[in-house]
């Protein structure tokens, strides 16, 4: 079996020198071959050794195994003899068995787990829901989670659903849902989407295609071209925008069978007013709520009409003691509380959705403040004016590039989208949560009362550009706001915030700067610090007046900490100052608010009542931002917030600026 070449020449005498030469040459070849072979094997073995040390298992084991098999095979093949071949087969079989076992390990483990009844880890999926309507969709997701099982009845997914308001979602999308050091000094400073909004979603239930378009644009601008494709979003149902009119008023103004008038919304409002005095009309905050924003398209056509309409809406909110509810859920909760207490003199008409009204009617909880009402709620008839539009719920999948399991999550998200859109008979249908499925054909809707079940979807379609235009129009037309900012300048505000490298006071200055940057041309602002040196209660850094800007925050930078806070007197005198600064005459209508940032509650309880009385005797809204050791649960703050005109917000040290942003987004949007 030798591979040496043979020589057939017959003469030994002639052959001898040739043989010697050949033998010598062969020996030389053999030696050089052996050397090369040995050095080659050595290299392979060195690489194996390095791989085992550098590459983590299982890669190192596979690499080392493959290298060993290669080296052995090559050596044995070069030196093959019968007994070597047998050895080779045994060694190869053993090596291949080892490698096969190693590679097949996960599959065998999984199969064994199936045999023994254990289940694989279900795919984790995160679903983002809109702030309005979240409980209904969350129930649907829960049903899906229970029923999404394989043949062994093992759960295929673990779905976690949560909700967040649209502006927060927009901000998170702008950052690609990651905290970003590049924005450390900008509008998004200190904003960490995973902490402040929630987990990065794999599926997002949006309230309109326009939102999905805007989201895609934000992600594209961030470099995430393939994360979201608006064209792939699945329609999962719709709900009409409606004007909910108190039953008695509806019957007087419109009579039976007139729920879908052709007249535009402003004309319908005039028709309502024709029944007596001006009917209050309320809605949620257009900046926070896509529903309220979409209503703007029907509320006014030109600037003059817009200003008048916004004044009327502000007046109504003020009279109803509603403030600026962020969502329709909050709005309806406050109305339910007002109705229950019997305080509301005239029930207002409400600009909302059929879905929100169905939940209101059903008595289901409307947030933490309005638990389940077994008596159910009622009293409103929905009006479906032509051209008002609909919310069209979309399920948009997000395929994050850096997630190795993005495909698995996307597959589950697709199944969930389909489930949400089509339902599963009695287990779940969009109608069960007040939403009309795309093929709705007059079926009953949960919580329906005097609904027009046969209404067809509107032709109206909103685009992302339309959203931006409406927001700009609102910003220009809304009533002017007067705000007095009072910042706690006591010693404790000098406490550094971990991870920020700045003190509470310095972060408050950043918040004030951002807030003043949002002023409209008709807005007025003032700036105080408290306490003041020399035993004074507060320092007036800026009187309440228009044309303030972010540069005015510099007035705070040289502030020297002072001890001896008298918060309650500051509050009472702040309300006085706002009233004194109110514009007079025809343009007198506006919103007045005092925003106070403090890290300690005033321990003197004796004048809490005086603060509440003073605020309630005015039209001023008071917002207290409690930071550091201060808590909204402190007895004095808790006693103050019984007044609907006084709100308390808590902010962690590093969230001071974002809390300011959120509040001023509402006040000055």
């Amino acid at each position, binding site marked *: 079996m030798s591979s040496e070449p043979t020589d057939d020449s017959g003469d030994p005498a002639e052959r001898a020198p040739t043989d010697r030469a050949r033998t010598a040459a062969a020996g030389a070849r053999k030696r050089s071959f052996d050397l090369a072979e040995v050095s080659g094997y050595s290299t392979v073995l060195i690489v194996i050794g390095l791989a085992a040390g550098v590459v983590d298992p299982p890669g190192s084991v596979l690499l080392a195994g493959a290298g060993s098999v290669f080296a052995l095979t090559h050596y044995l093949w070069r030196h093959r003899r019968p007994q070597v071949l047998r050895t080779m087969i045994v060694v190869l079989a053993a090596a291949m068995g080892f490698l096969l076992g190693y590679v097949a390990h996960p599959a065998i483990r999984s199969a064994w787990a199936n045999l023994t009844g254990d289940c694989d880890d279900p795919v984790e999926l995160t679903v983002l829901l809109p702030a309005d309507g979240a409980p209904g969709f969350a129930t649907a997701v829960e049903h899906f989670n229970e029923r999404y099982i394989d043949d062994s009845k093992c759960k295929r997914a673990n779905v976690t659903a949560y909700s967040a308001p649209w502006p927060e979602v927009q901000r998170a999308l702008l950052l690609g849902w990651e905290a970003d050091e590049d924005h450390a000094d900008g509008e998004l400073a200190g904003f*960490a989407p995973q902490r402040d909004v929630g987990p990065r979603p794999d599926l997002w239930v949006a309230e309109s295609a326009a939102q999905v378009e805007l989201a895609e644009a934000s992600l594209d601008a961030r470099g995430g071209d393939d994360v979201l494709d608006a064209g792939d979003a699945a329609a999962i149902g719709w709900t009409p925008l409606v004007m909910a009119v108190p039953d008695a008023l509806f019957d007087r103004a419109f009579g039976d069978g007139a729920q879908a008038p052709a007249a535009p919304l402003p004309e319908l409002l005039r028709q309502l007013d024709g029944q007596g005095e001006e009917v209050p009309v309320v809605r949620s905050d257009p900046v926070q709520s896509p529903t309220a924003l979409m209503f703007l398209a029907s509320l006014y056509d030109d600037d003059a009409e817009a200003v008048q309409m916004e004044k009327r809406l502000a007046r109504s909110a003020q009279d109803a003691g509603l403030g600026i509810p962020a969502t329709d859920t909050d709005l309806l909760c406050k109305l339910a509380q007002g109705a229950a207490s019997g305080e509301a003199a005239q029930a207002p008409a409400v600009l909302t959705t059929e879905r929100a009204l169905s939940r209101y009617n059903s008595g289901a909880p409307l947030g933490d403040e309005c638990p389940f009402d077994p008596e159910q709620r009622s009293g409103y008839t929905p009006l479906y004016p032509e051209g008002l539009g609909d919310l069209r719920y979309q399920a948009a999948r997000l395929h994050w590039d850096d997630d190795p399991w993005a495909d698995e999550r996307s597959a589950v998200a697709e199944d969930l989208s389909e489930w949400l859109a089509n339902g599963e008979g009695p287990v779940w249908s969009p109608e069960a949560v007040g939403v009309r499925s795309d093929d709705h054909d007059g079926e009953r809707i949960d919580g329906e009362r005097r609904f027009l079940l046969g209404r067809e979807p509107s032709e109206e379609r909103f685009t992302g550009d339309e959203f931006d235009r409406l927001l700009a129009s609102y910003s220009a037309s809304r009533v002017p706001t007067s705000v007095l900012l009072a910042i706690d300048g006591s010693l404790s505000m000098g406490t550094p915030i971990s991870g920020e490298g700045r003190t509470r006071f310095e972060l408050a200055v950043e918040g004030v700067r951002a807030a003043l940057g949002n002023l409209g041309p008709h807005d007025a602002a003032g700036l105080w610090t408290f306490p003041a040196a020399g035993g004074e209660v507060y320092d007036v850094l800026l009187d309440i007046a228009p044309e303030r800007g972010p540069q005015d925050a510099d007035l705070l930078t040289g502030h020297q900490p002072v001890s001896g806070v008298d918060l309650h007197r500051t509050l009472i005198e702040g309300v006085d100052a706002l009233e004194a600064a109110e514009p007079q005459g025809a343009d007198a209508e506006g919103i007045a608010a005092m925003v106070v940032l403090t890290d300690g509650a005033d321990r003197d309880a004796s004048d809490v009542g005086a603060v509440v009385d003073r605020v309630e005797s005015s039209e001023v809204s008071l917002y207290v931002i409690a930071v550091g050791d201060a808590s909204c649960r402190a007895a004095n703050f808790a006693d103050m917030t019984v007044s609907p005109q006084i709100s308390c917000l808590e902010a962690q040290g590093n969230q001071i600026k974002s809390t300011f942003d959120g509040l001023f987004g509402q006040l000055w949007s």
Partner: protein
Amino acid sequence: MGEARRSGDRRLNRRHLMLGAGAGAAAGLFGAGYLLGGREPSRDWERSKDPLKVYLPRDDTANRQQVLLVDQWNMRYADERFGAEIVELSPIADQAYSVVHAKLQSGASGIDVVGLDVPWIAEFAAEEYIRELEGVDRAGFIDQIFAAGVVDGRVYALPFHSDVGMLYYRREFVDEDRLRGLRGWGDLREVVDEVLPGTGFEGGIAMQLDAYEGFTVNVWEYLLAGGVDTAEDGSVDFGADSRAVELLEQRLPEDLYPALMGRSPDSAPRILYDSLYSDERDSLSAFEAGRTPFLRHWPRVFRSFDPCGADFQVGVVPMPGGVLGGQSLAVSAASRRPVVSQALIEFLTGPAAQQLIFERGGYAATRHEPYYDALARIANIGEGRGEEGGEGVRYDLLCDGEAGEEVAGEAPPRLEAGVLHAALEDAGRRPGVERYTQFSRAFHGLLHDALAQGGRPDLDRLGEELRDAVEGR
């Protein structure tokens, strides 16, 4: 002759060469085998220009002490390319679980250290998403708390800060001596029944019984305090005739609905009815608003009360049946820097860090030393006033201003240190199941609505349903 010698030399050389090659190959194979088979992983810290990624829920410590500790680590090690960076997650447990589970499940390498709620450890260890920690020194840790990170005898996580159920009470209404001897819910019922009549409270205890994970913990404590035994693995028998089902079908509804015991429906229940819709914040608000004389909550809320307030004095004792919670730190199996990751964990759970977490952060430490330190300081103050130490919380020290005031820039000792230490040492375990999250969802999913409807729930299938949840069905 000369030719033969040359030929013999050649043979000799070839033989030597072959022998050498064979020996070399054998040595190489042996070396490779040694590396593969008996390889000890390198214990050298792995350097990188990228910081270690530490996934933690939002830092709610009093002064963001978690962040400060990582800052401390960076001050020492960032220049040597061992820096670390916190990725803060939502403080809501379900949301934090979702992020951590998705990350670990995908095997993504951008996560090194992860903060885990105690019940998640077994699940992630079983799925091999987290690494076994090697060479851990357990000395100094409170045994019960350390054990929460051990699965099948292997250490997978070290405790960062701890939690345990505590019972807060309004001192003006409750005989403190009665509370110190509480052995279970039977004793607690007696105390509540003594306190409630004629006081105008809406209920006895404010708890967290909304349909979320808090429900599972609160009810689990209720079961343990009601005499339900746990098996060695922490599981409980939910069979049709079991003690657990008897408590859930009979006693718990009675504690929520007085009418089930033949009392007037208008009389105050032992457990505030609104607890069924309350989380931590709501229940605390109910207690602070004076709706109940008792509150079941976590240790960290103690510092939010003013124990010397004129109209609202709060005391605390361990909650009967109180179970352990808190955050532990583990190394992701996909981390490319496991050694330095473990070193960071050991730093964050070390004695110095735990002292800071306890003293400044307001959380329950996982080691003994901070408690002994606080107790020694309290005793010192007492001795300075010629008093002997007693059991429970020394409000007299605080309310006289002796310990409540800052002395020479030092924070006052945590006066509840002794009570808290005792609660942690005696704490029970949460359900010892691999899929705790699924278990918890099934548990509150099955029970919450049934209890909220006001009757006695029928729980014959409870055991079966919970078993399915644990098995992933």
